[in-house]
């Protein structure tokens, strides 16, 4: 099995396209860093952090007063924010007033969508290309069952996704540290079970990266399934990318009218919605979303494995 995964990894990294993807990701993050640095240099006056916290606190309290009919989840979120801001003032935990390493890493988490885009491209091509190249015939006449071959390919899709996430994270750390310095808060304040707790910044950011990657992992799995079932990489990549960018918006519109939207994949891919309390359809919980995601995931995998193992290879 290690040999199979090694084979797939080599096939991926012996092609220039892979380096173009990594290069693009690095260039985009660098451009984002440059832009941030430029903006920062224009900002002359340094604000006092207590002032910022106080004004935000006032804003939250006003919201709580003016919108009495908000959901309990939203209310909980705002109460949590108020508690955190109170904690900052009483315990003297400043908010960062200027960009520094960790805040930059947090900001560049938005580029996870691009990492995801590249992961989908790889997932959509990894099975279909073997058919296009005609190499599938030589691949499947080895003493290895078809499910094992498919699994090794899926493993490489996941490893490639994790690899891109790691590249993005480490690269952001390096750029953030060199351009903006490492001085700044190293703790993150969270509101857990009615109490403010201090969390390690690194752990918080890794958690953020993972949660933000849930949708791309599921979509990459879908692209992989389409690739294995239809043997067509353009179809797999096209549909998956379309859904990655359009899915959440369409789902949001549907969610305003229909209750069944909560069973739609994209209503559940954003797990961060449970932190802010702005859930897609009222009544959804973290457990519910994980269950829905699991069902979609299993269906995609079963389809891919079943069709790939049973089909006659006539290409």
């Amino acid at each position, binding site marked *: 099995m290690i040999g199979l995964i090694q084979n797939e990894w*080599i096939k991926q990294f012996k*092609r220039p396209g892979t380096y173009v993807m990594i290069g693009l990701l690095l260039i985009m993050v660098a451009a984002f860093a440059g832009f941030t640095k430029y903006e920062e240099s224009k900002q002359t006056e340094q604000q006092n952090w207590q002032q910022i916290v106080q004004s935000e606190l006032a804003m939250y309290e006003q919201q709580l007063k003016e919108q009495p009919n908000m959901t309990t989840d939203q209310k909980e979120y705002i109460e949590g924010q108020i508690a955190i801001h109170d904690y900052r003032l009483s315990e003297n935990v400043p908010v960062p007033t200027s960009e520094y390493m960790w805040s930059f890493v947090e900001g560049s988490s938005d580029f996870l969508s691009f990492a995801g885009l590249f992961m989908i491209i790889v997932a959509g091509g990894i099975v279909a290309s073997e058919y296009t190249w005609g*190499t599938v015939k030589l691949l499947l006449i080895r003493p290895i069952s078809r499910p094992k071959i498919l699994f090794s390919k899926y493993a490489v899709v996941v490893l490639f996704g994790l690899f891109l996430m790691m590249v993005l994270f480490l690269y952001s750390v390096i750029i953030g540290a060199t351009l903006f310095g490492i001085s700044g808060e190293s703790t993150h304040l969270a509101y857990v079970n009615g109490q403010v707790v201090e969390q390690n910044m690194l752990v918080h950011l890794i958690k953020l990266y993972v949660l933000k990657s849930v949708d791309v992992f599921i979509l990459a799995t879908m692209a992989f399934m389409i690739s294995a079932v239809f043997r067509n990489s353009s179809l797999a990549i096209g549909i998956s990318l379309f859904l990655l960018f359009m899915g959440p918006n369409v789902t949001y519109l549907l969610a305003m009218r229909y209750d069944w939207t909560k069973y739609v994949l994209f209503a559940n891919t954003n797990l961060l919605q449970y932190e802010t309390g702005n859930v897609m359809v009222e009544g959804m919980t973290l457990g519910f979303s994980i269950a829905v995601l699991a069902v979609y995931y299993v269906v995609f995998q079963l389809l891919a494995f079943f069709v790939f193992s049973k089909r*006659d290879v006539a290409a």
Partner: protein
Amino acid sequence: MNAVIQLENVSKTIKGKKIIDSLNFTIQEGEVFGFLGPNGAGKTTTIRMIVGLMKLSEGDITISGHSIQTEFEDAIRHIGAIVENPEMYKFLSGYDNLKQYARMQKSVSRERIDEVVKLVGLEDRIHDKVKTYSLGMRQRLGIAQSLLHRPKVLILDEPTNGLDPAGIKEIRQYIRDLAEKERMAVIVSSHLLSEMEMMCDRIGILQKGKLIDMQSVRGWMEEGRDTYSIEVDNAEMAAKYMKMAFEDLQPKISRGRITFEADKEQIPLVIHFFAGKGIDMYEVKKASKSLEERFLDITEKREVM
């Protein structure tokens, strides 16, 4: 002699149409078996079923006693194959391609890779990318790939495709050597009939999914009566005498020759007879049918039926 491959009542139905109809045959170790048939007769489909790329609708195929359907991994372990064109990863070097396949099989050492590379004569170019290879070089790489794990059965679809005459001769020699020295069973398919004649021990003719004839190449060439022609001074006279003396021969006259089908043993008798009757003979010639003619004879005959 041990049967390495056995096909039992193998059929394949696609969308209600029977593509392959009840194939039954065995191939022995050390034997080169040729698959012959017009395009669309089902040669490639049969090969795909033997290597497990296509499922069987009926029947079973066993390789070294293992069913390709229920014991795929144990059965396929003994097969090395090229199915249709030898398609390789073009962005990898020839050597990296072989390493890919080596990782998928147990017991393929570095030395073994070098050995097969040398066998197919690709030492100079093996570290170049496959996209720079000619068709002939790809064919050689394909053969190298199929031999890596020392299979008991070698399956080559159109192995001489795209090779120059020297290359064809070389491949033919490999195949004969592999069968004779390594006792490998080899299945080749080719549309070049003369090629098959030189390479194979036995040939099976496939038409419309049915195996319509199967014979050893030697037996086939010798089967039936051959056609002989004798150049004589007086063809009409010779034909008249012949009809009287040999009732089963039917001589035809053309341009000072009589032409007839006969058994080999009858020829000396005919010559003695003509000499006794005072007929002068200038040339006695055997007009043997080529494999190609026989092949066309057989396939056309079946077509009418």
